């Protein structure tokens, strides 16, 4: 009996590797190993020309911490903080915009809902580069929007709303809004309205009604939305590169510079390690929260 069960288990395991093996092997070979190599480079010494050479050292990490030839500089911390802040604020903006939008859609007649949702998502189907470019057109120094801002004294004369932190925030929020709308909509569509009706008898005010009956039900959707928006926004490259300029530099551009301009691979790899650590921490925290709240994406692997 035991051997039969074992044999069955072994044959299942064999079939698992036959079918899933090639794909898994592909990912290991072309992503896991490369990223391992990349992180390994962080522990090498920088050669005269910016290549990684032996001996192993932690020099690149002291560079990451801000120790340079001109003494200590807080610039890297600023960049890290700015990336976190931009991701956080952009996520909040998408939440504030997505809630009314989603509830507007679910309160429409059933036949109209798919098309309304569709048209909230369509802009995200164009390439990210094109979407970001559109904002370059809107926020540059001679665009009407910048003109209005100059006249109102929001920005100094002759400068545009781009490049800068504001432009990056707008770009990130715009690019990732659909990623907040979709999971929130999925949650709102399944909303149990009888709970809301019951709540209406208990609470008078609209805000209290919302936070005690509607909000908890959409929480799983909100948390997946935060993961889908916050994490890619934190590591984004295109938006800060095109809309940011020097003063709004984010971690992505700082990393890329070490590989595409004045090369310094070990330093770039060490910065990458920092980015991955923050990404993983964010992911784990929000996954845990989702699990605790009993949410989950049904068919998760």
């Amino acid at each position: 009996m035991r051997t039969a069960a074992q044999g069955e288990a072994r044959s299942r395991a064999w079939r698992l590797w036959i079918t899933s093996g090639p794909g898994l092997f592909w990912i290991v070979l072309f992503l896991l190993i490369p990223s391992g190599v990349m992180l390994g480079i962080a522990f090498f010494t920088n050669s005269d020309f910016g290549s990684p050479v032996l001996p192993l050292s932690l020099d690149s990490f002291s560079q990451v911490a801000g120790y340079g030839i001109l003494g200590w500089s807080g610039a890297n911390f600023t960049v890290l903080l700015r990336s976190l802040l931009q991701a956080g604020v952009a996520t909040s903006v998408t939440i504030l915009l997505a809630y009314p939008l989603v509830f507007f859609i679910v309160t429409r007649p059933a036949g109209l809902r798919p098309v309304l949702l569709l048209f909230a998502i369509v802009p995200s189907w164009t390439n990210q580069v094109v979407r970001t470019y559109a904002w370059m057109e809107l926020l540059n120094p001679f665009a009407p929007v910048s003109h209005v801002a100059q006249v109102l004294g929001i920005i100094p004369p002759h400068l545009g709303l781009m490049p800068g932190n504001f432009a990056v925030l707008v770009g990130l929020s715009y690019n990732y809004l659909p990623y907040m709308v979709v999971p929130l909509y999925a949650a709102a569509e399944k909303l149990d309205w009888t709970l809301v009706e019951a709540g209406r008898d208990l609470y008078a005010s609209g805000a209290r009604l919302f936070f005690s009956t509607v909000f908890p039900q959409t929480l799983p959707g909100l948390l997946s939305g935060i993961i889908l928006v916050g994490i890619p926004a934190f590591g984004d490259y295109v938006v800060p590169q095109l809309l940011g300029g020097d003063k709004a530099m984010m971690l992505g551009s700082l990393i890329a510079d070490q590989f595409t301009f004045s090369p310094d691979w070990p330093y770039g790899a060490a910065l990458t390690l920092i980015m991955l650590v923050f990404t993983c921490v964010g992911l784990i925290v929000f996954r845990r929260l989702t699990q605790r709240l009993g949410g989950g994406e049904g068919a998760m692997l």
Partner: protein
Amino acid sequence: MNAVPRRIQRVLAGISLPVYLLLYAPLSVIAIFSFAPSLGHPGPNVAAYGLLLNDPQVLAALRRSLTLAIGSAILGTMLGTLMGFGLSRFRPAKGGGFWLGTLPSLIIYLPIIMPSLVFGISELIFFNFVHEYTGLLSAGLLTMGIAHVTFQAPYVALVVYARLAGLDPNLFEASQDLYANAVKSFVFLTIPVVRPALIGGFLLAITLSIDDFTISFFTAGPGSVTLPIYIYSAIARKGSSPEINALGSLMIATVIGVALLYYFVTRHRERSNRIPAVA
């Protein structure tokens, strides 16, 4: 929904309509600017479109984008389907411990959660090492394709897995009795059953490939400039130009056209599905 008072519905609409406007305003600006007067073309004109359609660089970039998308999607779908199928059917019921349970999941999610910048630079360095020591994998469409397959396969696997997870496991038991042979069972039962997911996954893979910029940018070689890379280098360098506006407008128009088409096709299909159900 009657649960939401009229007053609040009005507030929701009051916020949502500007949001819709905001979503489309930048895209319309590109479209409007594509007709703007330019050097030697005073007044609103379509000169930029003419320039675009006669630009061999743009056409070559489009051709490469499509080659890359279709080629990588075929392989990505094959690998992804097998992964999704294997993991849903042959993984031990109790999760399978670390080696058969957690590890495959971790590997599959890796390309999805990895920031694309890290993804791209890692591949750049890796392909460089491989090329230096073996002479294989010179950067170009091939390396871009490999990278694309790496992020397409997991998404396809998730789509196929989701489809299979909704099925009755007894179906497979029965088919094994019927066909006796695992390969036959796969060909005659599994493939037809997952076909919608297969097609969806394949199309998703194509979209992911066309949508990607960052990973392509770092894995590209000489003569493998695709459409997103072409647009990016043009705008990072020059800011706006009527030609790029025209190109952007065409891409936006394609997407909106497809969205409308999709909407009418599915509405039609839903209706035709509903009739027999009612009868």
